[in-house]
């Protein structure tokens, strides 16, 4: 045990930094989000309005961007799950000497700079990019396919970027499934497919949930990849916030959107932790 005043002295510097440079700045966005924006001069003094929040629910364009963001979150999560599970299964249950090299090959792109990875996808997907060049050389298409500045581009790029997170979560979950239970089911005459469907898959469900929540929240929060692959026109919530602040200078609107995005992320994390706790209670 260390004395309480020593503990306070140890924790105070970080607590102060986080309060001053994270908590307070985020809370200070709140009054801004109820302010009124006057084009050209900024914030109106002494005016309080719900307009910025109402617009998010009422305005067609904002609604479209929000649905697009959520839809993108769902489809990227699903794609990561479908692509990630076989790989995670191979890492967890495959040959022992494959495990470390495979994990490193998953971690390497994850640690690589995000702008570099997104740049790689631009080089692949743009009109004169590698994919279109290849398909045209093979004579499969006459006109370049539109693979960027739309849902296709964002799906491919974001799936690639968040797949490693999903794989690592699933590896941990599958490794937690006791082999004895799988072996018992097999001994009792289950086929390999059936063992997987009846034992491995349900027992790795907490990992599936955790990985899905993580990928979903990261996807709806993403700024860099949607901006690089979606361009200035195909917007999601994060890039819309970016433009409200940097191009339109409409801070009230941008901060209301920021809180909407934060609310989505936090409530999804909260709901999933409730769900996990209930699952743990049932076991």
């Amino acid at each position, binding site marked *: 045990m260390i004395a309480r005043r020593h503990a306070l002295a*140890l924790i105070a510097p970080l607590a102060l930094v986080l309060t001053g440079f994270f908590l307070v700045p985020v809370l200070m966005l709140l009054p801004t989000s109820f302010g009124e924006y006057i084009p050209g001069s900024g914030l109106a003094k002494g005016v309080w309005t719900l307009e910025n929040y109402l617009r998010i629910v009422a305005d067609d364009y904002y609604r479209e961007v929000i649905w697009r963001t959520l839809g993108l979150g769902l489809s990227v999560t699903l794609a990561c799950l479908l692509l990630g599970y076989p790989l995670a299964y191979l890492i967890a249950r495959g040959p022992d000497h494959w495990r470390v090299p495979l994990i490193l090959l998953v971690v390497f792109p994850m640690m690589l700079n995000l702008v570099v990875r997104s740049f790689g996808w631009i080089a692949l997907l743009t009109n004169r990019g590698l994919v279109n060049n290849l398909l045209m050389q093979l004579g499969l298409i006459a006109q370049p396919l539109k693979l960027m500045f739309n849902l296709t581009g964002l799906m491919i790029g974001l799936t690639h970027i968040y797949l490693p997170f999903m794989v690592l979560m699933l590896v941990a979950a599958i490794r937690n499934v006791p082999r004895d239970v799988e072996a018992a089911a*097999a001994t009792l005459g289950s086929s390999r497919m059936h063992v997987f469907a009846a034992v491995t898959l349900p027992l790795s469900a907490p990992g599936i949930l955790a990985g899905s929540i993580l990928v979903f929240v990261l996807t709806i929060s993403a700024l860099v990849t949607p901006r690089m692959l979606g361009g200035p026109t195909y917007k999601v919530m994060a890039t819309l916030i970016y433009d409200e602040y940097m191009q339109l200078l409409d801070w009230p609107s941008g901060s209301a959107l*920021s809180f909407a995005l934060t609310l989505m992320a936090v409530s999804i994390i909260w709901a999933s932790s409730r769900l996990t706790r209930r699952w743990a209670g049932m076991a």
Partner: protein
Amino acid sequence: MSGAGMNGAGMNGDLERGPGRAITALALGVVVFLQIPVIVVVLAAFSTTSYLTIPPQGLTLAWFGKVLTDPTYLAAIRMSLLLAVGSTLVSLVLGVAAAYALFRKALPGAEAITALLMAPLVLPAVVIGVALLQFYSLTGLRGSLAGLLLAHVVITVPYVVRSALASLSGLDGAVEEAARVLGASGPEAFRLVTLPLILPGLVAGALFSFITSLDNVPVTIFLISASQTTLPVLIFSSVEMGIDPSVAAVSTLLILATGLILLLAERRFGFHRFV
């Protein structure tokens, strides 16, 4: 459960052989998918044409020469390294101290404090970015190096705290007590006994912190001044003007550095255990 049971071909040998051929092929396909943009960027960096063809039409090192003599790139690289090293060091000192206090359970409300320390991971980075933009505009910190450094501490410190807490929780508290009984002072016991034991975990946390700082665009882009920019922000903004092979070259340098760091961390500390 590994080793001995793996090789036996008992009545459930089918299961113990692990994933079937189809799953293995699919999984290896996904591994290739993960490396594709990396390979493409490296190929583009050595290509003589400004757009990519397969096979490349000619090889050149010219783009690397262009990057390494371009003052804008060099300044951005210097700025990025300065921020990454600086914020990681600050995060290490503040984060390990805080984690140690939490681990020793000497404080009330530890759960709330931990939540505050981890909160920057939960909030969308772009929200932290705009919050600091407004805050720095009001306080006159916008464009200052100190402001940028503290912003990077906010986004990197959760990684240090998390790995420090994980390493400490795997520790037998009695070891440090023993050192105290044998006459070591509190700080001595920490430095000579606890610190060496949690070092591999801290290295992993520091590495995550370093890479997070080096990677960051969504917070940094709101806070930099016109004269100082970081490497990822520079790449991010130059891509809007079109693909330039010098971007591929500087990206290839980053790929090389990341690969080397990862291999070194794996060799020295068995990094894969910490991801």
